[in-house]
């Protein structure tokens, strides 16, 4: 039972070969674009690597880069094959090459689709990675003298200013951590001693935020300290004050930034996927149409092209049989080895 038969007279075959040659060039550039998009995403993820706990999200740009490079190779061969296709003398040498070629090409094309699905599926993973990374960033903000953490302060400050966000979930995260180093606290001052003794861990907690949380759009100079104390500032009420500091949490800001980036890239990759799939489909039709011509005296006869010779299930079994045989052969060999 043949899947999707189509009749191909001589002119149609010629047109198919020419169209395929042009399409393979377009697909090559699309593959290069995919590789570039993967590089862009990886660079953006690396830039903020300090506030991410793990690099699992990097599997998305890595896959895109691999698929981009692979599609360059796939389309190069597609172009060569269709150039030789209309010459009945040169086409047969590609015969043995085409079966593994289609297997590999289908694999990489499906991988392209998978990478787009992964970029949406890994949103939760990204969010939890950022949650832990930002929590550490806030915790180690004050440790500018500890090797390995010297630049946490600068990283957090620049992040908050660039993404216009404050804290992890929101600005109150800064109230739970001592973000002013002991080096700059005057322990002979009564106020400082009281604050430290007021909590179990002996930390100097303030209801204040760093300057990088300040919103430049605020009409009044920034209020960073004593945020919850209305009487400490003239004409100030913290429940209704909106523009003073950034209200968005940095986790939310970063997740929406990366999701927006991956959405844009996903749309581009989907169109590349469609182009690549059409290249493979056209090549398959051309191959089957030309195979029917082989051996005939009149090369201008009408032939039939199809996608799959047998049904879908049988074709999949046909491809997987060699793989199973290989695995079974290993098992038999192992059995013999243990016997002897």
């Amino acid at each position: 039972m043949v899947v999707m038969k189509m009749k191909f007279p001589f002119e149609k075959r010629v047109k198919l070969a020419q169209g395929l040659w042009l399409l393979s060039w377009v697909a090559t550039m699309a593959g290069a674009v995919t590789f570039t998009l993967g590089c862009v995403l990886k660079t953006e993820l690396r830039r903020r690597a300090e506030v991410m706990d793990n690099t699992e999200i990097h599997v998305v740009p890595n896959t895109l880069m691999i698929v981009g490079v692979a599609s360059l190779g796939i389309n190069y061969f597609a172009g060569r094959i269709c150039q030789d296709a209309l010459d009945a003398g040169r086409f047969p040498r590609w015969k043995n090459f085409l079966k593994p070629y289609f297997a590999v090409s289908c694999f990489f094309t499906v991988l392209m689709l998978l990478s787009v699905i992964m970029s949406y599926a890994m949103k939760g993973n990204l969010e939890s990675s950022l949650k832990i990374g930002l929590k550490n960033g806030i915790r180690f903000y004050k440790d500018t003298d500890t090797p390995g953490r010297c630049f946490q302060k600068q990283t957090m400050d620049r992040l908050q200013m660039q993404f216009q966000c404050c804290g992890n979930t929101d600005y109150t995260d800064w109230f739970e951590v001592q973000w002013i180093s002991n080096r700059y606290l005057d322990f002979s001052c009564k106020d400082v001693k009281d604050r430290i003794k007021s909590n179990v861990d002996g930390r100097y907690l303030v209801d204040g935020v760093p300057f990088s949380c300040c919103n430049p759009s605020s009409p009044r100079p920034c209020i960073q300290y004593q945020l919850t104390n209305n009487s400490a500032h003239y004409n100030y009420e913290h429940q209704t004050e909106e523009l003073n500091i950034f209200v968005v949490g940095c986790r939310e800001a970063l997740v929406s930034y990366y999701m927006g980036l991956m959405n844009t890239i996903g749309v581009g990759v989907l169109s590349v996927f469609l182009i690549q799939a059409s290249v493979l489909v056209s090549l398959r039709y051309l191959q089957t149409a030309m195979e029917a011509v082989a051996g005939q005296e009149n090369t201008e006869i009408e032939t039939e092209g199809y996608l799959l010779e047998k049904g879908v299930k049988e074709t999949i079994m046909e491809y997987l049989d060699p793989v199973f045989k290989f695995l079974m052969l290993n098992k038999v060999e192992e059995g013999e080895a243990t016997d002897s």
Partner: protein
Amino acid sequence: MAFMPVKFDLPKRVKLAQGLWLLYWISMMVGILIFSLGIFFKIELRKRSEMMDNNESHFVPNLLILMGMVACGVNAFGGKVTHDSLDPTKFPKWKPMLKPYLTFCCGFNILLLITALLCFLMQFALYLTLADGLKNGIKFYKDTDTPGRCFMKRTLDMTQIEFRCCGNNNYRDWFEVQWISNRYLDMSNVEVRDRVMSNVEGKYLMDSVPFSCCNPGSPRPCIQHHLTNNSAHYDYDHRIEELNIWTRGCREALVAYYGGLMNSIGGLILLTIILESVDMAGLKYLTTSLESMSDPENPECESEGWLLEKGVKETMSDLFAKLKTMGKTNQVEEGAQAAT
């Protein structure tokens, strides 16, 4: 005696035409680049026009845009002429336009030279405009409720954050103006009243700076207020403290940025002048070698190409003589008219 004659046979003429066509394409790309740089420069000036009192001069970017468009047109025409030059049927229609075209190219090169000079010289005008604009910006920082100046605070804050600078000349400029609006000052407070009455104009002056002057690279949380008072902060000496706030003035930072941009554009224009001159020389050689063919019917004959028909001195004296006769003709005509 021709100036710099070169002998050309057919393969050499063909190579010259091909090389010249490629060179015209490159020159057209450079023309597009100048056009886009002009637009980019214009946008950068508009972005910060608030810092320049909205009266910055857009003459140079407008001139760059114009030069870019003219360069594109000139090079496209030159490329077309070169493309047609080796076809004896198409070339004759371009022949009469060549002399005015080359004269126009000469004039265009002189205009490019003037543009490059203007690019380098505009930096001084920009320096003066910025000095005024920033002074006013600092003065109107607090006027977030005055129509027309609502966004001065935000613009100045964002500029200080982006360019890592503070104040006009340096951070002390903030000590001389009242940058906290009266709306947020508690006039019933004794301290506030003392400060306001301590100076002639009744301004609330402090030795403090806005939060946007803070340096994220500082190891300690930002000290914005009581900057000159060492005892107000623990372990702080304002004379040796370097990383706390930005020490550079914004005028210096902005001038360096725009100066760098204008220097690069000026350098690119000088490069364009050299490229255009090479184009003109190549075209002159090509056209003279085609015109001086001894046997027009036989394309393979040898011919000679030159830059100037006579020597440099003779060409210059010819040119002056022409200019004189043009002036004299006018005089003779006037004399004749006066006589009648």
